[in-house]
């Protein structure tokens, strides 16, 4: 009897359990909880969301919504300017905290506080400091100059800068910590040799520190950009997207549409961000799964 090569007429496969070793059976059982979570709370929502955002009218509506264009620009400013400033400061401070001093050790313990405490109370604290009538900043301005201070959060540019500042305040310690680890991994002999040769601090940085840290630095910058796309708190809790919805970023805009019951617009705005997010994610995955 001839056995055809087509699948459905081939010899029936032996039952699954006899082909797998007991260890593999356990492997599947132990992997099952995560797979269930993944299917129920990642695959299903994403597919459902994409299905909601399928109609082209959504994208036309987004294109015609000035708030969306503004949010896209704000997001770019947040990422390109905000993150690069943050990472440069982190790189600089990692050199500072790598110094062997007792007081710098203590300062590094304090420095981590913004990362260790939840963001809601601290962001609200900053928000009140900026309050034009009762905030401490305008009180100080008044007592020194006799003039009323500006209405900080009422100017979109200033408000967005403040949101970026809050974001930097919150996440700077984390990135500094990681860059310190990178810096401490550099062999000390190199610096001693450079010292003997009379290298300036810039030469030491340029020819020793930077070459050994540049991969880490670029990885951190990209990772921070991806995560900052999801930074909802810094903007929402400080400005609430205001004044006049001019300081939204994509993550707060999605929630704004959601609250206005425009779920398909919310999903469409997220889909629009995907062409930027996915290459970054792909690049990071390549890098991390080596």
């Amino acid at each position, binding site marked *: 009897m001839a056995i055809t090569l087509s699948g459905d007429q081939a010899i029936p496969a032996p039952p699954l359990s006899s082909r797998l070793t007991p260890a*593999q059976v*356990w*492997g*599947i059982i132990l*992997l099952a*909880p*995560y797979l269930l*979570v*993944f299917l129920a*709370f*990642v695959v299903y*929502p*994403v597919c*459902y*969301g994409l299905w*909601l955002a399928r109609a082209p009218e959504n994208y036309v509506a987004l294109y015609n919504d000035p708030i969306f264009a503004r949010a896209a620009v704000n997001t770019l400013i947040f990422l390109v300017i905000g993150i690069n400033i943050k990472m440069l400061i982190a790189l600089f*401070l990692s050199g*500072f905290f790598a110094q062997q*001093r007792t007081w710098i050790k203590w*300062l590094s*313990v*304090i*420095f981590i*506080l*913004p990362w*260790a405490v*939840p963001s*809601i*109370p*601290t962001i609200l*604290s900053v928000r*009140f*400091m900026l309050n034009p009538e*009762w905030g*401490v900043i305008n009180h*100080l301005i008044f007592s020194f100059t006799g003039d009323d201070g500006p209405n900080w959060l009422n100017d979109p540019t200033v408000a967005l800068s403040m949101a970026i500042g809050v974001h930097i*305040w919150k996440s700077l310690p984390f990135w500094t*910590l990681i860059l310190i*680890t*990178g810096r401490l991994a550099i062999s000390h002999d190199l610096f001693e040799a450079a010292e003997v040769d009379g290298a300036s601090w810039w030469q030491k940085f340029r020819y020793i520190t930077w070459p050994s840290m540049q991969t*880490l630095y670029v*990885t951190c910058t990209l*990772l921070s950009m991806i*995560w900052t*796309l999801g*930074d909802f*708190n810094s903007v*929402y*809790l400080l400005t609430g997207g205001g004044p006049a919805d001019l300081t939204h970023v*994509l993550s707060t805009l*999605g*929630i704004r549409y959601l609250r206005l019951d425009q*779920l398909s617009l919310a*999903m469409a705005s*997220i889909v629009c961000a995907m062409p930027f*997010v996915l290459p970054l*994610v792909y690049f990071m*995955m390549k890098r*991390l*799964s080596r």
Partner: protein
Amino acid sequence: MKLPGVREFSWREVATEARLLLIGIPVFLWTMIPIYHMFLFAISPKEDAFSGKLWPDHPTLHNFEIVFKQQHYFLRDFYVQFWNSTVIAASVGVLTLFIATAAAFSISRLKVPGGRMVLNLALFTYFIPAAFLAVPMYRTMGNYGLLNNHWSLILAMVTIASPYAIWVLKQASDKLPVELDEAAVMDGATTLQIFRLVYLPLMMPSLVAIGTYAVLLAWNEYLYAFLLLSNDREITLPVALGNFLAADDSPWELLMTTGFIYALPPAAVYYAFRRYMVGGLTAGAVKS
């Protein structure tokens, strides 16, 4: 003549120290100002807080008393909300540890077929910004009928915490020598016995780090909590803090006091487990 034991200060050293201080003092101020401002409000009566003083004329613990006795409209469910935050954070910690440890063991030690792909999918989820997943997640929880139920927030946070947990634990378990498993198999240990008696004890430091990570993530979460829970007696503390802003004349001194109380547990946990966090998490966070 030089005296032994007396350190000589050269101008160079003094200049270096001064330069370091010139960086250190702004860093200290930058870090502490928002936190000090919060603390200042917590110990100030309302008039002092609103008059921009850098130290109150009459520092008081009265605000704490109001919070702990729930003597304000915004605070009437303070203990319930604190309890909600605690239960949700603890559940997320336990569930994430369970799911991620099982998955990491399965992928790294048992080499389950398709494990690599699951790991990549998890990693992919980890990189998708959580705020983007929030919109479809909200709708999905509605479809499952879980809105306003603590399970919605617990499951959402487990979904967000697991990918990173699996990835870190997989990296850590790859470092354990294969010979351990082989020796245990030779001695007739079953897979579950290896998991319980060999694997878990050796993974303890990473498990502590990941458990802490998941608990803090859930405790600190605002966006998902405020989307998924809305009933006053179901919400967590951060949502309650956000609700203070609903009124025009918000009692900011009470908001800051509650915020201060809310910020203390995670800060304490963070500093208590810092040793594990720095080793276990930063190594995993960025591999260069």
